[in-house]
């Protein structure tokens, strides 16, 4: 069954050529139409997600043990003194919501990048030891070295990058195959977890609170001091990741095919890993390893965005949404106050099951 594009000079030939040209033009129209429609749908999805995030932010700022109206909140943001609200909203809720947003965006973006790069939804930075590295360093800094504040963040970031480099080097044997990277990451994570366990045994009562934060992730006691580095990281590393979208997409077709299309495979891999690890480390330094946000955001984004384009931005927005909702629920909707990491961890379990079942039905592979 072959077609040949023909066009000879005789009268019926010229007619045939015109028909072929028309068909071609129609086809191009069709392709363009399909593409534009997909773009439009994608823009709508992103807009809706952004609105949801905005709504959650407003909710988090207004509602709580005491409710304030949006107008009052706006006053506080503008810097006016409002009795009661200035403290509750200005000092407590605003930094908390801000870091929730930043961390959620960071975890979502970084997680989705990792999963796309390693072609495996289960290969998330929280599973392969990156977040654990940052937490272990922070826990160590707090409990053993009795440090606090921004210094701890620096520790976490350095550790995160070192651990990621270590994992990469250990997995590198003429190229870091995704499989080996994941497995080495799991091994390193196990070591770091035992380090955290040991650190905890050394902890006195009063340190245990903060140490627990480094195990599960919590937004309690957020301050601007830790939020700023995370914000800067997001503004710098986020665009770096987004710039690699094409190459990430092309790597999905396999290293060879991507290279054939002009992608520099190792360079993209290193760039994406470093940027993603940076994002995760900065965010983990501020909040601890909020369980499963990095892991879940990508798959949820995949479900929603499907084949309509890159899932990085939607994953970031979903990450933000997850953190904001989980924190709100953890603070007010359950009997005891649970840190956000526990909520997301508990939510992660059934979603994991659902994800597996769905992947199996679609005949895909993990």
């Amino acid at each position: 069954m072959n077609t040949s594009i023909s066009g000879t000079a005789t009268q019926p030939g010229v007619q045939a050529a015109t028909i072929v040209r028309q068909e071609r033009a129609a086809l191009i129209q069709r392709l363009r139409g399909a593409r534009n429609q997909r773009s439009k749908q994608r823009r709508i999805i992103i807009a809706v997600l952004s609105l949801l995030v905005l709504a959650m932010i407003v909710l988090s700022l207004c509602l709580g043990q005491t409710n304030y109206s949006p107008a009052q909140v706006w006053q506080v943001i503008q810097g006016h003194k409002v009795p009661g609200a200035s403290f509750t909203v200005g000092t407590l809720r605003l930094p908390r919501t801000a870091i929730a947003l930043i961390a959620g965006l960071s975890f979502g973006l970084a997680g989705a990048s990792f999963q796309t790069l390693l072609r495996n939804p289960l290969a998330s930075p929280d599973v392969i030891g990156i977040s654990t590295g940052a937490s272990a360093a922070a826990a160590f800094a707090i409990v053993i070295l009795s440090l606090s504040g921004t210094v701890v963040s620096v520790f976490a970031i350095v550790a995160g990058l070192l651990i990621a480099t270590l994992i990469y080097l250990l997995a590198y044997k003429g190229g870091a195959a995704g499989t080996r990277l994941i497995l080495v990451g799991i091994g390193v994570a196990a070591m770091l977890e035992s380090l955290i366990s040991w650190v905890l045994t050394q902890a006195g009562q009063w340190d245990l609170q903060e140490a627990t934060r480094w195990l599960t992730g919590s937004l309690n006691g957020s301050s601007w001091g830790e939020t700023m580095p995370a914000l800067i990281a997001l503004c710098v590393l986020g665009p770096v990741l987004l710039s690699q979208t094409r190459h990430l997409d092309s790597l999905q077709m396999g290293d060879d095919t991507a290279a054939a299309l002009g992608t520099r495979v190792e360079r993209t891999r290193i760039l994406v890993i470093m940027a993603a690890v940076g994002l995760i480390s900065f965010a983990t330094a501020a909040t601890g390893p909020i369980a499963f946000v990095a892991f879940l955001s990508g798959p949820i984004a995949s479900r929603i965005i499907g084949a309509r384009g890159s899932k990085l931005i939607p994953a970031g927005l979903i990450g933000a949404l997850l953190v904001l909702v989980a924190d709100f629920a953890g603070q007010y909707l359950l009997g005891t106050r649970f840190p956000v990491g526990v909520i997301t961890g508990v939510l992660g379990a059934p979603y994991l099951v659902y994800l597996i079942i769905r992947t199996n039905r679609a005949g895909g592979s993990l």
Partner: protein
Amino acid sequence: MPPRELIVAGLRVGYGERTIIDGLELRIPPGGITCIVGPNACGKSTLLRSMSRLLHPKAGQVLLDGRDIHRMQPKALAKILGLLPQNPIAPEGITVADLVGRGRQPHQGLFARWSKDDDAAVAEALEVTNTVELADRPVDELSGGQRQRVWIAMALAQGTETLLLDEPTTFLDVSHQLDVLDLLTDLNRQRGTTVVMVLHDLNLAARYSDHLIALRDGSIRAQGKPEDILTAQVVHEVFGLQCQVIADPSTLKPLILPAGRHHMLEHAGA
């Protein structure tokens, strides 16, 4: 556009500590169809991969029109040299039109603006491979033969004058194998695309190639027109196979008749 000349000079290449190919010299005839054949693990995939920059040579060069491909920018090379590797992965849920569109990557900048040329290239690729009706369907749902045509369409959309294919017909059933090879022949005859492919089926390679390269243990044992080089002796030397070579009555190309231990007539002469 005149076809480009692909030359391999003094190539030494391998994986890690092992050297698979040492000191190989090769000139691919521009504008023709070249097939590389050989027994398992003879280095044919390795050779193809080093001709496309997937594998960095330890020594020697691969030159396309006199330019060392390993010194070129990947994107620049991707515009003039296309490769369809073994086992490409189709991202989940992607449609045929989108997958073919990915072939335009070397021509698109950071912000992926789709130009008229891009659309035209995709449309043409779909037409030539006869996959227009499949354009909106997810690639996952297609049969093996259809999927391979889609991958070829993607490589086509890249718009290169030279196309390398690593075992494009493995895992396809016979009718689809012929389908793909006829398609590649169309490309070559009508557009002058230089095609270089690794094939595992010796008879198909004999039928479809203008230039045949027989490889064993990393070195070329014979190369030239199939009619000229495919003799029982060459086949024995390269594949370790006893056979009889006759002229295929339908194509007049060499046809290899392997000699096994059973079912052979007593006086099946050479």
